[in-house]
Protein backbone atom coordinates (compact mmCIF):
# COMPACT_ATOMS: atom_id res chain seq x y z
CA UNK A 1 0.00 0.00 0.00
CA UNK A 2 1.25 3.48 -0.86
CA UNK A 3 0.96 6.59 1.27
CA UNK A 4 0.53 10.04 -0.23
CA UNK A 5 0.95 13.59 1.00
CA UNK A 6 -2.26 15.06 -0.37
CA UNK A 7 -2.32 18.44 1.33
CA UNK A 8 -0.14 20.78 3.34
CA UNK A 9 -0.42 23.98 5.35
CA UNK A 10 1.57 26.32 7.52
CA UNK A 11 1.17 29.08 10.06
CA UNK A 12 3.73 31.79 10.77
CA UNK A 13 2.80 34.23 13.55
CA UNK A 14 2.67 37.99 13.01
CA UNK A 15 4.60 40.05 10.51
CA UNK A 16 8.09 39.04 9.35
CA UNK A 17 10.85 40.44 11.55
CA UNK A 18 14.03 41.49 9.76
CA UNK A 19 17.57 41.38 11.13
CA UNK A 20 17.45 44.99 12.28
CA UNK A 21 14.30 44.45 14.37
CA UNK A 22 15.17 41.17 16.10
CA UNK A 23 16.72 42.67 19.16
CA UNK A 24 13.85 45.15 19.57
CA UNK A 25 11.54 42.14 19.97
CA UNK A 26 13.76 39.77 21.98
CA UNK A 27 15.18 42.61 24.08
CA UNK A 28 18.60 43.92 25.08
CA UNK A 29 20.33 41.78 27.71
CA UNK A 30 21.27 44.12 30.58
CA UNK A 31 20.45 46.99 28.25
CA UNK A 32 23.36 46.28 25.91
CA UNK A 33 23.24 45.28 22.24
CA UNK A 34 24.67 41.85 21.44
CA UNK A 35 28.21 41.72 20.13
CA UNK A 36 27.69 38.33 18.50
CA UNK A 37 24.43 38.95 16.64
CA UNK A 38 25.88 40.23 13.39
CA UNK A 39 28.44 37.44 13.09
CA UNK A 40 25.93 34.68 13.79
CA UNK A 41 23.35 36.13 11.38
CA UNK A 42 25.96 36.48 8.68
CA UNK A 43 26.83 32.84 9.00
CA UNK A 44 23.27 31.50 9.08
CA UNK A 45 22.07 33.73 6.24
CA UNK A 46 18.55 34.18 7.69
CA UNK A 47 17.03 37.54 6.70
CA UNK A 48 13.49 37.26 8.11
CA UNK A 49 11.62 35.23 10.69
CA UNK A 50 8.42 35.30 12.75
CA UNK A 51 7.88 35.50 16.49
CA UNK A 52 4.82 34.59 18.53
CA UNK A 53 5.86 37.10 21.19
CA UNK A 54 5.75 40.87 20.98
CA UNK A 55 8.31 43.44 22.15
CA UNK A 56 6.66 43.51 25.61
CA UNK A 57 7.15 39.73 25.70
CA UNK A 58 3.47 38.88 25.69
CA UNK A 59 2.81 35.58 23.94
CA UNK A 60 0.31 36.48 21.21
CA UNK A 61 -0.45 32.93 20.17
CA UNK A 62 0.43 29.70 21.96
CA UNK A 63 2.30 26.77 20.45
CA UNK A 64 -0.79 24.54 20.34
CA UNK A 65 -2.81 27.31 18.70
CA UNK A 66 -0.18 27.72 16.00
CA UNK A 67 -0.15 23.97 15.44
CA UNK A 68 -3.94 23.93 15.18
CA UNK A 69 -3.94 26.78 12.65
CA UNK A 70 -1.38 25.03 10.44
CA UNK A 71 -3.45 21.82 10.73
CA UNK A 72 -6.65 23.67 9.87
CA UNK A 73 -5.01 25.33 6.84
CA UNK A 74 -3.89 21.90 5.68
CA UNK A 75 -7.39 20.38 6.09
CA UNK A 76 -9.04 23.40 4.43
CA UNK A 77 -6.95 22.76 1.34
CA UNK A 78 -7.75 19.03 1.26
CA UNK A 79 -10.54 16.74 0.09
CA UNK A 80 -11.00 15.35 3.60
CA UNK A 81 -13.61 16.54 6.05
CA UNK A 82 -12.32 17.10 9.53
CA UNK A 83 -14.75 14.60 11.00
CA UNK A 84 -13.20 11.76 8.99
CA UNK A 85 -9.69 12.31 10.30
CA UNK A 86 -8.38 9.05 11.81
CA UNK A 87 -4.97 9.86 13.22
CA UNK A 88 -3.23 12.95 14.57
CA UNK A 89 0.54 12.85 14.90
CA UNK A 90 2.34 15.93 16.22
CA UNK A 91 5.81 17.13 17.11
CA UNK A 92 7.41 19.98 18.99
CA UNK A 93 10.57 20.65 20.97
CA UNK A 94 8.65 22.19 23.82
CA UNK A 95 4.90 22.32 24.27
CA UNK A 96 3.11 25.07 26.18
CA UNK A 97 2.76 22.68 29.10
CA UNK A 98 5.29 20.18 30.39
CA UNK A 99 2.44 17.69 30.67
CA UNK A 100 0.22 16.36 29.11
CA UNK A 101 1.61 15.45 25.68
CA UNK A 102 1.53 18.17 23.04
CA UNK A 103 -0.74 16.02 20.86
CA UNK A 104 -3.59 16.19 23.38
CA UNK A 105 -3.41 19.98 23.48
CA UNK A 106 -3.33 20.28 19.69
CA UNK A 107 -6.22 17.85 19.28
CA UNK A 108 -8.38 19.90 21.65
CA UNK A 109 -7.43 23.16 19.93
CA UNK A 110 -8.09 21.73 16.49
CA UNK A 111 -11.31 20.06 17.60
CA UNK A 112 -10.98 16.62 16.03
CA UNK A 113 -12.88 13.70 17.60
CA UNK A 114 -11.75 10.20 18.40
CA UNK A 115 -8.43 10.22 16.56
CA UNK A 116 -5.53 7.93 17.33
CA UNK A 117 -2.92 10.22 18.85
CA UNK A 118 0.85 10.33 18.65
CA UNK A 119 3.29 12.91 20.06
CA UNK A 120 6.99 12.95 19.14
CA UNK A 121 9.53 14.51 21.42
CA UNK A 122 12.91 15.74 20.24
CA UNK A 123 14.27 18.69 18.31
CA UNK A 124 14.41 19.23 14.53
CA UNK A 125 13.92 15.60 13.61
CA UNK A 126 10.87 15.10 15.84
CA UNK A 127 8.58 16.15 12.96
CA UNK A 128 10.05 13.40 10.79
CA UNK A 129 9.55 10.89 13.60
CA UNK A 130 5.91 12.01 13.87
CA UNK A 131 5.61 11.70 10.10
CA UNK A 132 7.09 8.21 10.16
CA UNK A 133 4.68 7.09 12.88
CA UNK A 134 1.76 8.27 10.74
CA UNK A 135 3.25 6.82 7.56
CA UNK A 136 3.73 3.39 9.10
CA UNK A 137 0.22 3.57 10.58
CA UNK A 138 -1.19 3.96 7.06
CA UNK A 139 1.24 1.44 5.60
CA UNK A 140 0.08 -1.16 8.10
CA UNK A 141 -3.52 -0.56 7.07
CA UNK A 142 -4.49 0.75 10.49
CA UNK A 143 -5.72 4.05 9.08
CA UNK A 144 -6.64 5.65 5.77
CA UNK A 145 -5.51 9.14 6.71
CA UNK A 146 -3.44 11.03 9.24
CA UNK A 147 -2.72 14.67 9.91
CA UNK A 148 0.87 15.38 10.90
CA UNK A 149 1.70 18.74 12.51
CA UNK A 150 4.99 20.20 13.72
CA UNK A 151 5.10 23.44 15.66
CA UNK A 152 7.68 25.48 17.53
CA UNK A 153 7.57 28.47 19.85
CA UNK A 154 11.25 28.98 20.57
CA UNK A 155 11.15 32.73 21.14
CA UNK A 156 10.00 32.32 24.74
CA UNK A 157 13.51 31.02 25.43
CA UNK A 158 15.14 34.08 23.91
CA UNK A 159 13.60 36.89 25.92
CA UNK A 160 16.30 39.13 27.39
CA UNK A 161 14.97 38.36 30.89
CA UNK A 162 15.96 34.69 30.48
CA UNK A 163 19.59 35.67 30.08
CA UNK A 164 19.44 38.29 32.81
CA UNK A 165 18.20 35.66 35.26
CA UNK A 166 21.49 33.78 34.94
CA UNK A 167 24.15 34.61 37.50
CA UNK A 168 27.20 34.33 35.20
CA UNK A 169 27.84 36.09 31.94
CA UNK A 170 26.22 34.40 28.97
CA UNK A 171 28.68 32.57 26.71
CA UNK A 172 28.68 32.09 22.95
CA UNK A 173 27.07 28.64 23.08
CA UNK A 174 24.11 29.98 25.03
CA UNK A 175 23.60 32.94 22.70
CA UNK A 176 24.13 31.11 19.41
CA UNK A 177 20.55 29.91 18.95
CA UNK A 178 19.06 33.26 19.93
CA UNK A 179 19.90 34.54 16.44
CA UNK A 180 18.96 31.29 14.77
CA UNK A 181 15.58 29.92 15.86
CA UNK A 182 12.11 31.37 15.48
CA UNK A 183 8.44 30.39 15.58
CA UNK A 184 6.00 28.69 13.24
CA UNK A 185 4.06 25.55 12.40
CA UNK A 186 3.64 23.26 9.39
CA UNK A 187 1.25 20.43 8.61
CA UNK A 188 0.96 17.56 6.12
CA UNK A 189 -2.04 15.37 5.38
CA UNK A 190 -1.34 11.73 4.58
CA UNK A 191 -3.87 9.57 2.76
CA UNK A 192 -3.85 6.10 1.26
CA UNK A 193 -5.11 7.49 -2.07
CA UNK A 194 -3.62 10.32 -4.13
CA UNK A 195 -5.65 13.47 -4.78
CA UNK A 196 -4.93 15.49 -7.90
CA UNK A 197 -1.20 16.01 -7.83
CA UNK A 198 0.27 14.45 -4.66
CA UNK A 199 3.62 13.38 -3.27
CA UNK A 200 3.97 9.63 -2.78
CA UNK A 201 6.20 8.76 0.16
CA UNK A 202 8.70 6.21 -1.19
CA UNK A 203 10.41 5.70 2.17
CA UNK A 204 11.42 7.44 5.40
CA UNK A 205 14.61 6.38 7.16
CA UNK A 206 16.34 7.67 10.25
CA UNK A 207 19.84 7.07 11.65
CA UNK A 208 20.51 8.12 15.24
CA UNK A 209 24.04 8.36 16.66
CA UNK A 210 23.42 9.37 20.27
CA UNK A 211 25.49 6.44 21.55
CA UNK A 212 28.64 7.80 19.94
CA UNK A 213 28.40 11.57 20.48
CA UNK A 214 27.89 13.95 23.37
CA UNK A 215 24.83 16.21 23.60
CA UNK A 216 25.16 19.08 21.12
CA UNK A 217 21.96 21.08 21.65
CA UNK A 218 20.07 21.10 24.90
CA UNK A 219 17.87 22.73 27.50
CA UNK A 220 18.01 21.49 31.07
CA UNK A 221 21.63 21.35 32.16
CA UNK A 222 24.15 24.05 33.08
CA UNK A 223 27.78 24.03 31.85
CA UNK A 224 30.00 21.79 33.93
CA UNK A 225 27.11 20.56 36.07
CA UNK A 226 25.70 17.09 35.49
CA UNK A 227 22.42 17.83 37.26
CA UNK A 228 19.12 18.09 35.43
CA UNK A 229 17.11 21.28 36.00
CA UNK A 230 14.72 19.06 37.96
CA UNK A 231 17.44 18.17 40.46
CA UNK A 232 17.68 21.70 41.85
CA UNK A 233 15.79 22.53 45.06
CA UNK A 234 13.76 25.15 43.25
CA UNK A 235 13.27 25.98 39.58
CA UNK A 236 14.55 29.48 40.36
CA UNK A 237 17.92 28.00 41.35
CA UNK A 238 18.02 26.00 38.14
CA UNK A 239 17.40 29.15 36.13
CA UNK A 240 20.06 31.12 38.01
CA UNK A 241 22.57 28.32 37.32
CA UNK A 242 21.84 28.63 33.59
CA UNK A 243 20.26 25.17 33.39
CA UNK A 244 17.23 26.51 31.51
CA UNK A 245 19.10 28.28 28.71
CA UNK A 246 19.00 26.67 25.31
CA UNK A 247 22.58 25.81 24.41
CA UNK A 248 24.43 24.61 21.33
CA UNK A 249 27.90 23.12 21.67
CA UNK A 250 29.13 24.73 18.46
CA UNK A 251 32.33 22.73 18.40
CA UNK A 252 30.40 19.55 17.83
CA UNK A 253 28.44 21.00 14.92
CA UNK A 254 30.80 19.80 12.20
CA UNK A 255 29.71 16.27 13.05
CA UNK A 256 26.27 17.05 11.68
CA UNK A 257 27.75 17.56 8.22
CA UNK A 258 29.69 14.30 8.35
CA UNK A 259 26.76 12.33 9.68
CA UNK A 260 24.41 13.92 7.16
CA UNK A 261 26.68 12.80 4.34
CA UNK A 262 27.25 9.41 6.00
CA UNK A 263 23.51 8.70 6.02
CA UNK A 264 23.17 9.68 2.40
CA UNK A 265 26.08 7.43 1.38
CA UNK A 266 24.45 4.62 3.33
CA UNK A 267 21.19 5.13 1.45
CA UNK A 268 23.09 5.19 -1.86
CA UNK A 269 24.74 1.92 -0.87
CA UNK A 270 21.38 0.37 0.02
CA UNK A 271 20.11 1.39 -3.40
CA UNK A 272 17.42 3.68 -1.96
CA UNK A 273 18.97 6.84 -3.36
CA UNK A 274 20.36 7.40 -6.83
CA UNK A 275 21.79 10.90 -6.78
CA UNK A 276 21.49 11.20 -10.56
CA UNK A 277 17.74 10.68 -10.35
CA UNK A 278 17.02 13.27 -7.66
CA UNK A 279 15.16 16.28 -9.10
CA UNK A 280 14.75 18.35 -5.92
CA UNK A 281 16.52 18.44 -2.58
CA UNK A 282 14.89 19.92 0.50
CA UNK A 283 17.41 19.93 3.30
CA UNK A 284 16.81 21.39 6.73
CA UNK A 285 20.20 22.90 7.38
CA UNK A 286 20.14 25.22 10.33
CA UNK A 287 22.31 27.79 8.68
CA UNK A 288 23.68 28.72 5.29
CA UNK A 289 27.17 27.89 6.49
CA UNK A 290 26.35 24.19 6.64
CA UNK A 291 24.79 24.11 3.21
CA UNK A 292 28.20 24.83 1.69
CA UNK A 293 29.90 22.23 3.83
CA UNK A 294 27.40 19.47 3.01
CA UNK A 295 27.68 20.38 -0.62
CA UNK A 296 31.49 20.25 -0.62
CA UNK A 297 31.62 16.89 1.10
CA UNK A 298 29.09 15.35 -1.30
CA UNK A 299 31.06 16.73 -4.25
CA UNK A 300 34.25 15.30 -2.84
CA UNK A 301 32.59 11.89 -2.55
CA UNK A 302 31.42 12.11 -6.15
CA UNK A 303 27.80 12.09 -4.93
CA UNK A 304 26.97 15.74 -5.62
CA UNK A 305 23.46 16.87 -6.44
CA UNK A 306 23.65 20.06 -8.55
CA UNK A 307 23.06 23.26 -6.62
CA UNK A 308 20.07 24.36 -8.71
CA UNK A 309 18.13 21.35 -7.43
CA UNK A 310 18.35 22.51 -3.81
CA UNK A 311 15.33 24.41 -2.48
CA UNK A 312 14.92 26.14 0.85
CA UNK A 313 12.91 28.94 2.41
CA UNK A 314 15.16 29.19 5.47
CA UNK A 315 16.27 32.72 4.62
CA UNK A 316 12.75 34.20 4.59
CA UNK A 317 10.78 31.96 7.00
CA UNK A 318 13.55 31.37 9.53
CA UNK A 319 14.72 28.21 11.22
CA UNK A 320 11.61 26.90 12.93
CA UNK A 321 13.18 23.72 14.28
CA UNK A 322 11.01 20.68 13.71
CA UNK A 323 8.44 22.76 11.79
CA UNK A 324 11.01 23.81 9.17
CA UNK A 325 10.73 20.80 6.89
CA UNK A 326 6.92 20.94 6.76
CA UNK A 327 6.89 24.72 6.18
CA UNK A 328 9.49 24.19 3.45
CA UNK A 329 7.58 21.37 1.82
CA UNK A 330 4.34 23.38 1.94
CA UNK A 331 5.91 26.37 0.20
CA UNK A 332 7.70 24.14 -2.29
CA UNK A 333 4.40 22.44 -3.12
CA UNK A 334 2.64 25.74 -3.70
CA UNK A 335 5.27 27.85 -5.41
CA UNK A 336 7.88 25.71 -7.16
CA UNK A 337 7.71 24.02 -10.51
CA UNK A 338 7.86 20.23 -10.57
CA UNK A 339 6.62 17.47 -12.88
CA UNK A 340 4.82 14.18 -12.42
CA UNK A 341 7.50 11.56 -11.82
CA UNK A 342 9.93 14.00 -10.19
CA UNK A 343 11.87 12.69 -7.21
CA UNK A 344 12.23 14.83 -4.08
CA UNK A 345 14.80 14.05 -1.41
CA UNK A 346 14.18 15.52 2.06
CA UNK A 347 16.87 15.55 4.75
CA UNK A 348 16.65 16.60 8.38
CA UNK A 349 19.98 16.31 10.16
CA UNK A 350 19.40 17.12 13.84
CA UNK A 351 22.22 18.30 16.05
CA UNK A 352 20.49 17.61 19.41
CA UNK A 353 22.34 14.37 19.83
CA UNK A 354 22.72 13.58 16.16
CA UNK A 355 19.59 12.05 14.69
CA UNK A 356 19.31 12.28 10.91
CA UNK A 357 16.12 11.49 9.04
CA UNK A 358 15.73 11.20 5.27
CA UNK A 359 12.66 10.86 3.09
CA UNK A 360 12.08 10.35 -0.60
CA UNK A 361 8.93 11.54 -2.37
CA UNK A 362 7.72 11.02 -5.92
CA UNK A 363 5.31 13.43 -7.59
CA UNK A 364 2.24 11.50 -8.78
CA UNK A 365 -1.02 12.39 -10.52
CA UNK A 366 -4.34 10.89 -9.38
Amino acid sequence: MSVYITSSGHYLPGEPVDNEQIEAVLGLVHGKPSRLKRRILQSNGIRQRHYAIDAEHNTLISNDEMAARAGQACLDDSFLSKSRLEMLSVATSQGDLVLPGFGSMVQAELGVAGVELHSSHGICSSSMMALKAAYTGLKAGEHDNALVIASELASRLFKASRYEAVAQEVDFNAEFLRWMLSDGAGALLLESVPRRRSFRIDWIRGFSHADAYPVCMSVGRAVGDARSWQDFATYAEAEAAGALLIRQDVRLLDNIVKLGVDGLLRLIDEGRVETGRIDHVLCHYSSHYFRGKIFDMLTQAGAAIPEEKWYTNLYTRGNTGCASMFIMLDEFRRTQSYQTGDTILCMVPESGRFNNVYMQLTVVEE
Partner: protein
Amino acid sequence: MESKVTTQLGQECLQGLMRVWFDFERQLGRVPIIQRLERGNFTREDYRSLLLHLRQQVIEGARWITRGASSFERDYADVRSEVIGHAKEEHRDYEMLEADFVAAGGALAEIRAGQRNAGSEALHAFMMYRASQPNPVDLIGAMWIIEGLGQKMASDWARRIDEATDGDGRYTCFMRYHGENDDAHLDKLYTLIDRVCRTPEQQQAILRTARVVARLYALQLEEIEHG
Protein backbone atom coordinates in the same frame (compact mmCIF):
# COMPACT_ATOMS: atom_id res chain seq x y z
CA MET B 1 35.30 22.11 -5.02
CA GLU B 2 35.64 19.28 -7.51
CA SER B 3 35.25 15.57 -7.16
CA LYS B 4 38.63 14.31 -5.97
CA VAL B 5 38.42 10.92 -7.58
CA THR B 6 37.35 10.52 -11.19
CA THR B 7 36.90 6.84 -12.07
CA GLN B 8 33.60 5.07 -11.31
CA LEU B 9 35.26 2.36 -9.19
CA GLY B 10 37.44 4.95 -7.49
CA GLN B 11 34.41 7.05 -6.56
CA GLU B 12 32.57 4.08 -5.13
CA CYS B 13 35.72 3.22 -3.24
CA LEU B 14 35.99 6.75 -1.85
CA GLN B 15 32.34 6.71 -0.77
CA GLY B 16 33.00 3.41 0.96
CA LEU B 17 36.12 4.80 2.63
CA MET B 18 34.19 7.85 3.84
CA ARG B 19 31.58 5.59 5.39
CA VAL B 20 34.27 3.50 7.08
CA TRP B 21 35.76 6.73 8.42
CA PHE B 22 32.44 8.04 9.77
CA ASP B 23 31.84 4.69 11.43
CA PHE B 24 35.34 4.83 12.91
CA GLU B 25 34.63 8.27 14.37
CA ARG B 26 31.56 6.80 16.05
CA GLN B 27 33.69 3.94 17.41
CA LEU B 28 36.11 6.53 18.80
CA GLY B 29 33.17 8.34 20.40
CA ARG B 30 32.49 5.19 22.46
CA VAL B 31 36.08 4.76 23.73
CA PRO B 32 36.27 5.85 27.39
CA ILE B 33 39.44 7.97 27.17
CA ILE B 34 38.10 9.79 24.09
CA GLN B 35 34.73 10.34 25.78
CA ARG B 36 36.55 11.95 28.70
CA LEU B 37 38.51 14.11 26.28
CA GLU B 38 35.29 15.24 24.57
CA ARG B 39 33.68 16.06 27.90
CA GLY B 40 36.76 17.95 29.07
CA ASN B 41 37.31 15.59 32.04
CA PHE B 42 40.76 14.75 30.83
CA THR B 43 43.97 15.05 32.84
CA ARG B 44 47.61 15.41 31.90
CA GLU B 45 48.05 11.85 33.12
CA ASP B 46 45.39 10.71 30.63
CA TYR B 47 47.31 12.52 27.92
CA ARG B 48 50.60 10.89 28.83
CA SER B 49 48.91 7.55 28.86
CA LEU B 50 47.46 8.26 25.40
CA LEU B 51 50.92 9.15 24.04
CA LEU B 52 52.49 6.12 25.68
CA HIS B 53 50.07 3.83 23.88
CA LEU B 54 50.16 5.72 20.58
CA ARG B 55 53.94 5.60 20.40
CA GLN B 56 54.15 1.92 19.52
CA GLN B 57 51.80 2.31 16.60
CA VAL B 58 53.65 5.40 15.36
CA ILE B 59 56.96 3.52 15.40
CA GLU B 60 55.51 0.39 13.83
CA GLY B 61 53.57 2.48 11.32
CA ALA B 62 56.83 3.58 9.74
CA ARG B 63 57.84 -0.08 9.46
CA TRP B 64 54.75 -1.43 7.75
CA ILE B 65 54.71 1.40 5.28
CA THR B 66 58.33 0.80 4.24
CA ARG B 67 57.66 -2.94 4.13
CA GLY B 68 54.63 -2.21 1.97
CA ALA B 69 56.68 -0.06 -0.39
CA SER B 70 59.09 -2.93 -1.00
CA SER B 71 56.19 -5.26 -1.80
CA PHE B 72 55.11 -3.27 -4.85
CA GLU B 73 56.42 -4.87 -8.05
CA ARG B 74 57.58 -3.20 -11.25
CA ASP B 75 54.09 -2.43 -12.59
CA TYR B 76 53.46 -0.39 -9.47
CA ALA B 77 56.76 1.52 -9.43
CA ASP B 78 54.91 4.86 -9.36
CA VAL B 79 52.87 3.76 -6.35
CA ARG B 80 56.05 2.55 -4.67
CA SER B 81 57.59 6.01 -5.11
CA GLU B 82 54.59 7.65 -3.46
CA VAL B 83 54.65 5.24 -0.55
CA ILE B 84 58.40 5.66 -0.06
CA GLY B 85 57.99 9.45 -0.02
CA HIS B 86 55.30 9.10 2.59
CA ALA B 87 57.38 6.75 4.74
CA LYS B 88 60.39 9.03 4.56
CA GLU B 89 58.40 12.01 5.82
CA GLU B 90 56.99 10.22 8.81
CA HIS B 91 59.40 7.52 9.90
CA ARG B 92 60.88 9.56 12.75
CA ASP B 93 57.67 11.20 13.94
CA TYR B 94 57.83 9.19 17.14
CA GLU B 95 60.71 11.40 18.32
CA MET B 96 58.37 14.39 18.35
CA LEU B 97 55.83 12.30 20.23
CA GLU B 98 58.40 11.36 22.85
CA ALA B 99 59.39 15.01 23.27
CA ASP B 100 55.70 15.86 23.89
CA PHE B 101 55.54 13.10 26.50
CA VAL B 102 58.50 14.62 28.32
CA ALA B 103 57.13 18.18 27.99
CA ALA B 104 53.87 16.94 29.51
CA GLY B 105 55.73 15.79 32.60
CA GLY B 106 56.66 12.22 31.64
CA ALA B 107 60.04 10.51 31.86
CA LEU B 108 61.77 9.61 28.59
CA ALA B 109 62.83 6.24 30.00
CA GLU B 110 59.21 5.42 30.77
CA ILE B 111 57.89 5.98 27.23
CA ARG B 112 60.89 4.24 25.69
CA ALA B 113 60.19 1.20 27.82
CA GLY B 114 56.55 1.17 26.65
CA GLN B 115 55.12 -2.08 25.32
CA ARG B 116 52.51 -2.63 22.65
CA ASN B 117 49.07 -3.12 24.15
CA ALA B 118 46.77 -5.87 22.87
CA GLY B 119 45.24 -3.57 20.27
CA SER B 120 48.63 -2.32 19.04
CA GLU B 121 49.82 -5.94 18.78
CA ALA B 122 46.85 -6.89 16.64
CA LEU B 123 47.14 -3.78 14.49
CA HIS B 124 50.86 -4.24 13.98
CA ALA B 125 50.56 -7.94 13.15
CA PHE B 126 47.77 -7.31 10.67
CA MET B 127 49.61 -4.45 8.97
CA MET B 128 52.90 -6.31 8.63
CA TYR B 129 51.00 -9.27 7.19
CA ARG B 130 49.15 -7.16 4.64
CA ALA B 131 52.26 -5.15 3.75
CA SER B 132 54.12 -8.39 2.98
CA GLN B 133 51.67 -9.45 0.26
CA PRO B 134 52.64 -8.77 -3.37
CA ASN B 135 51.31 -5.40 -4.56
CA PRO B 136 49.39 -4.59 -1.36
CA VAL B 137 47.05 -1.96 -2.84
CA ASP B 138 44.76 -2.34 0.16
CA LEU B 139 47.32 -0.41 2.24
CA ILE B 140 45.56 2.66 0.82
CA GLY B 141 42.68 1.74 3.13
CA ALA B 142 45.02 1.72 6.14
CA MET B 143 46.61 5.01 5.09
CA TRP B 144 43.12 6.53 4.78
CA ILE B 145 42.38 5.79 8.43
CA ILE B 146 45.80 6.82 9.76
CA GLU B 147 45.87 10.09 7.77
CA GLY B 148 42.31 10.87 8.78
CA LEU B 149 43.34 10.43 12.40
CA GLY B 150 46.23 12.81 11.90
CA GLN B 151 43.76 15.44 10.78
CA LYS B 152 41.41 14.73 13.65
CA MET B 153 44.24 14.98 16.19
CA ALA B 154 45.37 18.29 14.75
CA SER B 155 41.99 19.91 14.24
CA ASP B 156 40.26 18.67 17.36
CA TRP B 157 42.22 16.61 19.89
CA ALA B 158 45.25 18.89 20.31
CA ARG B 159 43.04 21.89 21.16
CA ARG B 160 40.84 19.87 23.50
CA ILE B 161 43.88 18.42 25.27
CA ASP B 162 45.43 21.84 25.81
CA GLU B 163 42.13 23.25 27.07
CA ALA B 164 41.42 20.39 29.45
CA THR B 165 44.96 20.29 30.86
CA ASP B 166 45.80 24.01 30.85
CA GLY B 167 48.39 23.50 28.15
CA ASP B 168 49.82 26.16 25.86
CA GLY B 169 50.51 23.96 22.82
CA ARG B 170 54.00 23.15 24.02
CA TYR B 171 53.31 19.46 24.50
CA THR B 172 50.85 18.86 21.67
CA CYS B 173 53.39 19.40 18.86
CA PHE B 174 53.12 15.89 17.43
CA MET B 175 49.36 16.12 17.00
CA ARG B 176 49.45 19.67 15.65
CA TYR B 177 52.29 18.97 13.23
CA HIS B 178 50.31 16.17 11.66
CA GLY B 179 47.52 18.48 10.65
CA GLU B 180 49.86 20.82 8.83
CA ASN B 181 50.95 18.12 6.41
CA ASP B 182 48.01 15.83 6.18
CA ASP B 183 46.04 17.93 3.69
CA ALA B 184 48.74 17.33 1.10
CA HIS B 185 48.91 13.67 2.14
CA LEU B 186 45.17 13.27 1.67
CA ASP B 187 45.35 14.80 -1.81
CA LYS B 188 48.01 12.24 -2.71
CA LEU B 189 45.78 9.52 -1.32
CA TYR B 190 42.91 10.61 -3.57
CA THR B 191 45.20 10.28 -6.58
CA LEU B 192 46.33 6.87 -5.36
CA ILE B 193 42.72 5.68 -5.07
CA ASP B 194 42.19 6.29 -8.79
CA ARG B 195 45.50 4.62 -9.52
CA VAL B 196 45.12 1.41 -7.50
CA CYS B 197 41.38 0.82 -7.40
CA ARG B 198 40.93 -0.67 -10.85
CA THR B 199 38.94 -3.86 -10.16
CA PRO B 200 36.05 -4.74 -7.82
CA GLU B 201 38.41 -7.10 -5.98
CA GLN B 202 40.87 -4.28 -5.31
CA GLN B 203 38.04 -2.06 -4.15
CA GLN B 204 36.85 -4.73 -1.76
CA ALA B 205 40.36 -5.30 -0.40
CA ILE B 206 40.91 -1.57 0.22
CA LEU B 207 37.63 -1.21 2.10
CA ARG B 208 38.20 -4.37 4.10
CA THR B 209 41.65 -3.27 5.23
CA ALA B 210 40.31 0.16 6.14
CA ARG B 211 37.58 -1.48 8.28
CA VAL B 212 40.01 -3.81 10.01
CA VAL B 213 42.51 -1.03 10.71
CA ALA B 214 39.73 1.21 12.09
CA ARG B 215 38.51 -1.53 14.41
CA LEU B 216 42.00 -2.45 15.62
CA TYR B 217 42.94 1.18 16.14
CA ALA B 218 39.85 1.70 18.27
CA LEU B 219 40.79 -1.46 20.17
CA GLN B 220 44.24 0.01 20.78
CA LEU B 221 42.63 3.06 22.38
CA GLU B 222 40.19 0.93 24.39
CA GLU B 223 43.17 -1.01 25.72
CA ILE B 224 44.62 2.15 27.27
CA GLU B 225 42.21 1.55 30.14
CA HIS B 226 43.67 -1.90 30.67
CA GLY B 227 47.27 -1.16 31.34
